[in-house]
């Protein structure tokens, strides 16, 4: 079984790092696999490439497999999330004009208070807020809806969410097509770099531990190629562990910057890796702890409760049956496959679901070796999602 080649699709974003690092740093080779990494032009194309077998695995927005299971978008192939690739890592930005209005209102751009930033944004928005997100089924869209509706702006009526491909986000805000955006790095920093936008908030200020991208595979492939999938999960998990070490950041950003991957200056990519973001063209900096997690706090573990939360948000927004949506979503995040692949290697949680939003400070939990702690996962408004009670 030596030398199995797996084709894996990715979108050029900083959070594709675990896949790129798995291949480039030899974690895939350690498992006897080679990742043939294919850069995809859009999320819908990548989803279809996965559905129709052009790739065996893909870097995927966490809500996409859930949306597919709910019959929203896509070709109907069942897609499973075998691992979470990254937690958090998005930024919310505004146009220069809107930033001026926010400043004139007295907003301080503290970059850590979602309530203050959201209320200021709602007050500064004149005739309806137009916000760009990369895809209709994305954590970006879910967080924006959650954030603004919790602050009293009726969604989706009070806000126009527009789909804008990430590389075109800066351009769209420059052209006045949108007033604000929520996008993954490096595209927020790129908007600052080109002088077209300013950053208002990291997405982690809305939900402190949001599953952002997943390692997606076809459900039938996962059933037939369990051993191969296990190798892939392990290679990617080790890549995430390597990425979590601060001494890896310089090399990681250099790898990502290469023409075949992100093809962008490494100093722009570095901001997401270190959580030290430049928020305005004037050069103001903010340090965001936990801006992007690849490993800490069992970041790779696909909690069933995360999938259910996503399923319920999608159901509420599209008028689908809540209980059915929860059931369908629950099946998509494969904590069983993840645990099976990493048994004896990673210290994983004993449970497969948790109360989302309940961890306020780093907390030890029951795990295989008993040394696992979970990172804060609170929602900005203090709400919790308890899968056992809903």
């Amino acid at each position, binding site marked *: 079984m030596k030398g199995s080649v797996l084709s894996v699709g990715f979108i050029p974003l900083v959070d594709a790092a675990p896949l790129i690092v798995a291949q480039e740093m030899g974690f895939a080779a350690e498992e006897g696999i080679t990742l043939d990494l294919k850069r995809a032009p859009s999320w*819908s194309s990548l989803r279809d490439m996965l559905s129709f077998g052009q790739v065996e695995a893909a870097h995927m927005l966490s809500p996409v497999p859930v949306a597919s299971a709910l019959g929203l978008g896509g070709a109907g192939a069942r897609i499973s999330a075998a691992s979470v690739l990254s937690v958090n890592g998005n930024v919310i930005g505004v146009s220069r004009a809107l930033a001026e209005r926010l400043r004139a209102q007295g907003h301080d751009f503290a970059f850590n208070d979602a309530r203050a930033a959201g209320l200021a944004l709602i007050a500064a928005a004149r005739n309806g807020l137009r916000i760009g997100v990369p*895809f209709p089924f994305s954590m970006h869209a879910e967080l924006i809806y959650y954030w603004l509706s919790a602050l009293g702006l009726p969604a989706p009526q009070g806000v126009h969410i527009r789909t804008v491909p990430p590389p075109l986000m800066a351009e769209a805000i420059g052209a006045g097509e949108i007033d604000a955006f929520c996008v993954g790095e490096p595209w927020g920093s790129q908007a600052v770099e080109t002088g077209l936008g300013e950053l208002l908030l990291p997405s982690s200020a809305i939900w402190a531990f949001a599953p952002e991208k997943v390692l997606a595979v076809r459900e039938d492939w996962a059933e037939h190629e369990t051993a191969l999938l296990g190798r892939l999960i392990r290679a990617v998990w080790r890549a995430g562990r390597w990425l979590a070490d601060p001494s890896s950041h310089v090399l990681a950003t250099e790898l990502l910057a290469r023409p075949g991957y992100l093809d962008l200056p490494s100093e722009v990519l570095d901001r997401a890796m270190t959580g030290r973001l430049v928020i305005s063209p004037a050069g103001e900096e903010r340090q965001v702890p936990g801006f992007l997690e690849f490993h800490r706090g069992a970041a790779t573990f696909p909690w069933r409760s995360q999938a259910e939360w996503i399923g319920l948000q999608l159901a509420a927004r599209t008028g689908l049956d809540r209980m059915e949506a929860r059931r369908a979503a629950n099946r998509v995040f494969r904590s069983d496959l993840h645990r099976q692949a990493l048994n004896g290697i990673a210290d994983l949680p004993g449970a497969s679901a948790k109360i989302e939003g309940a961890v306020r400070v780093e907390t030890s939990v029951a795990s295989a070796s008993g040394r696992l702690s979970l990172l804060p996962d609170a929602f900005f408004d203090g709400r919790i999602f308890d899968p056992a009670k809903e």
Partner: protein
Amino acid sequence: MPNAISIIIVEADRDRATQIVDSLRDAGAYDIHIIGETAGLSRKISALNPDVVLIDIENPSRDTLEELALASGPLDRPVAMFVDRSDDGMSSAAIEAGVSAYVVNGMQPQRLKPILDAAIARFRMFQRMRTELAETKRALEERKVIDRAKGMLMKARGIGEDEAYALLRKTAMDQGRRVADVAQALVTAAGLLS
């Protein structure tokens, strides 16, 4: 023609768009619009209310079309990407060829088939051309590198051009590598040493 199927082609390249239109006209009588500018794409499409939208898979703006699927309630399925797994491999063929199609008004699959057949054939040709162009560019790059490596060898060893090439080829064969790769290694190494 009131009952003609209306088709939107999203394509920035005027020539390519015209070629797709020609292929479709050969396949049947359709009402065809071209959108070249992708800013505000989903709004423009909603305004024209077509039956089918054809878009290049390589076009990143394709993601904005997914929004249409949510526009008037997902349960009505006003927009579905035509692909479903029940058909005769047509969806895979389309993806291989690099075209994606969205059916907007729940059209009968048999009415879609000739449109897709024509689009797939045309997109296959585009893809061949794209590959050929990439190959040609690569070959040109490699020739340049080999020429530079040859020049370096000629100067360093005082040998003729044929001999320099023979040396590159022999080294490549001994190491089981391509001549272009050996030449690249030489050029890189020389750059480091100078």
